[in-house]
């Protein structure tokens, strides 16, 4: 699936964004399938806004976001649900886990929300790789941010996708844990032939990026 941004400007920040140059805002950009995209976005440049706009959580923008040349404004709730189940996965900056579910249940929910592509034991394998096996049966609400972030990463990886959206996915992880997560994400994206959009504050060389944009 191709993602295209066409003269996209968030309305609340319009003045600010029009007055400065950006690789993505107020221009036309196309992300081809399978490409691994890094978006370098210092604080206040609107990276979460961009991610939420592409994921169709925000509607307060001018311009268009197109999936395979289809404006996402024309996609209704049930169609969007299908896209989120099959084609687009996301790791939120603010994690967004169900606090009353255990870590495992949070991941399980994502696995069974559509026809599962993995058996349940894949959850254990991934948890093992990221070092969160001990907290799998713990309520997500009482896990540390680092643990929650790894739960959120696994949650995004146990389901089908063509694009993985990641909004500062390693912000709560140390270098060793970041490397483990990077390896897992790389493996899963490669396995699926999937692309990703990763926003972060600074440049890095964690992945073999196809393109790097500055927001």
């Amino acid at each position: 699936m191709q993602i295209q941004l066409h003269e996209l400007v968030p309305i609340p920040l319009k003045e600010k964004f029009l007055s400065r140059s950006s690789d993505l805002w107020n221009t036309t950009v196309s992300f081809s399938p399978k490409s691994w995209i890094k978006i370098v976005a210092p604080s206040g440049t609107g990276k979460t806004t961009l991610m939420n706009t592409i994921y169709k959580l925000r509607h307060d923008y001018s311009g268009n976001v197109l999936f395979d040349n289809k404006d996402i404004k024309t996609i209704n709730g049930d169609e969007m649900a299908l896209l989120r189940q099959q084609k687009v996965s996301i790791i939120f900056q603010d994690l967004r886990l169900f606090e009353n579910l255990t870590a495992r249940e949070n991941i399980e929910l994502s696995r069974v929300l559509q026809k599962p592509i993995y058996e349940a034991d894949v959850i254990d394998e991934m948890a093992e790789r990221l070092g969160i096996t001990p907290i799998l049966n713990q309520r997500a609400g009482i896990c540390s941010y680092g643990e929650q972030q790894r739960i959120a990463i696994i949650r995004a990886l146990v389901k089908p996708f063509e694009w993985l959206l990641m909004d500062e996915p390693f912000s709560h992880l140390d270098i060793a844990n970041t490397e483990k997560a990077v390896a897992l994400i790389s493996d899963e994206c490669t396995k699926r032939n999937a692309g990703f959009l990763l926003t972060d504050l600074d440049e890095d060389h964690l992945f073999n990026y196809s393109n790097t944009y500055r927001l």
Partner: protein
Amino acid sequence: MNQPQLLNALLKKIIRSGIGKGRYIMAAVGLSIAMLLILSAVQIQVNYNELLYGKNNRDSIANFLVLNKVINGNSRDNTLSKELIEDLKKQPFVEEIGQLTSSKFKVSAQSPSENLPFYTDLFFESVPDEFLDVKSDQWKWEMGSTDIPLIIPNQFLDLYNFGFAPSQGLPQLTPGLVMALPIVINVNYQGLPIKFTGHVVGFSDRISSVLVPDNFLKMANKQFSNTTEARPSRVVIKTKDPGNPQLVKYLKDNGLTTDADKTRFSKYRKIVNTIVGASSATGVVMLLFALLVFSLFIQLTIASTSKEINLLITIGAAPRQLQTFLMKQYLPLNIIIIFTSLLVVALGQFFLESFLRSQNMFISQWLSFYTIATALIILVVLWLVNYFTIKKYISS
């Protein structure tokens, strides 16, 4: 567990943790009480109608009225004309009409025994059998028989037992004793007494007269009387509703009158009607209130899980799928509450029926169609309220 079961279990956990048990139970109890109230109100209304108009209760005193002209001293002729009777037949409130035929000959009664001597001049009247409130195998007369069954008013016995007997130093009589007592009846035919034997076979609350079988009186009037064709002075009508204002107005317009007790009954019934009407209005208000409370509860429930619903949709739950799931969470509760309430009302009806039967009032043992229909309608209404509330919250 397969995928849908797993998903359902997870969704259930998410939604339940959002709602809270206390709120859930409170709303369920509230709805149950409201359901009980409205279903009882409907069932009571039906019972009330059945008591008034039901076949088993219809043969009660209230539905037969004896009509006669108002006696005010201005008119010597207080008989009812043919035209008036014909007109009466045509009235919508008259189901059946029976003429009270009176005897056109002189008759007297006396005791056969010296122990209990009495003598009285007498008269007879008769009505068609279907207007009688006394059922007796002995209530028949065959041509040629000198044995005449009699029905006397209950008040006669009361008058005798509590008024006459004590003042004359005579023994009081039980109904059984009176019925066992033969009475010598003398019919005066051209100056000569013709003897018959009468015996009381029953006591009537409905018609205050000395009644003999219709065929006997017809024969006797023909045989012993000089006057031809007697005009009746009283008729008895069978009516569905003695309290019908139309009936009361008709009587007044035609100078007719009837037993005051029965019109008083209709006044009581008006009061009862008003009370039942008010209680069913209260029932309707209660129902609306219950629906309001329940829909508020649903809104509150969904509002309290709106964060969860929002996140579910964010990670890819389909709105339609979620709507179906949420509907399934409420429907069983609604069905259970409605059927439990129906069951409780049905039990109440069962016991009420046996209690009223012991009081000689007859209602159905079972729930009425209207009660069940009301329950089903409420189920549909609740379903709609659920549906639209959930839809509103999901699409927002």
